[in-house]
């Protein structure tokens, strides 16, 4: 159950941060119209970016652990 709560918290955080980034990249004042194509492409990019960041970060931690630094 704790695992599930963490998963929910992570999904919520991801939705919130991706929404904000994509709102800023896709919409303009005075915000009268949607731009769904842009949002979908932006979300796809955001998730790909997440994977790159995650992979790079975890491998840095791994290296540091192997070198006995942490």
């Amino acid at each position, binding site marked *: 159950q704790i695992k599930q709560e963490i998963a929910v918290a992570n999904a919520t955080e991801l*939705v919130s941060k991706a929404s904000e980034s*994509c*709102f800023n990249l896709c919409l303009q004042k005075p915000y009268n119209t949607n731009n769904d194509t842009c949002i979908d492409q932006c*979300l796809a990019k955001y998730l790909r970016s997440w994977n790159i960041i995650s992979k790079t970060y975890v491998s840095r931690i791994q290296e540091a652990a192997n070198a006995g630094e942490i």
Partner: protein
Amino acid sequence: KEMATFLDGENAKQKIQSAVHRFNESCFQKCVASVQSPTLSAEEENCLSGCVNRFLDVSIRVANGIQGSR
């Protein structure tokens, strides 16, 4: 039991208030560029309601997109 219902209700209210604080901070910054009078112009009001409506549209689309990609 009543206490739990009360707390759930307060909790929901609190989440809404937090969201309003967050949206207002972000949309005020995007929509209000100068402070020459204490009232909002029609343009600023239009921008503010558009901002929160579009932000909710984007959040719903992003949440659905993330669920679909699993």
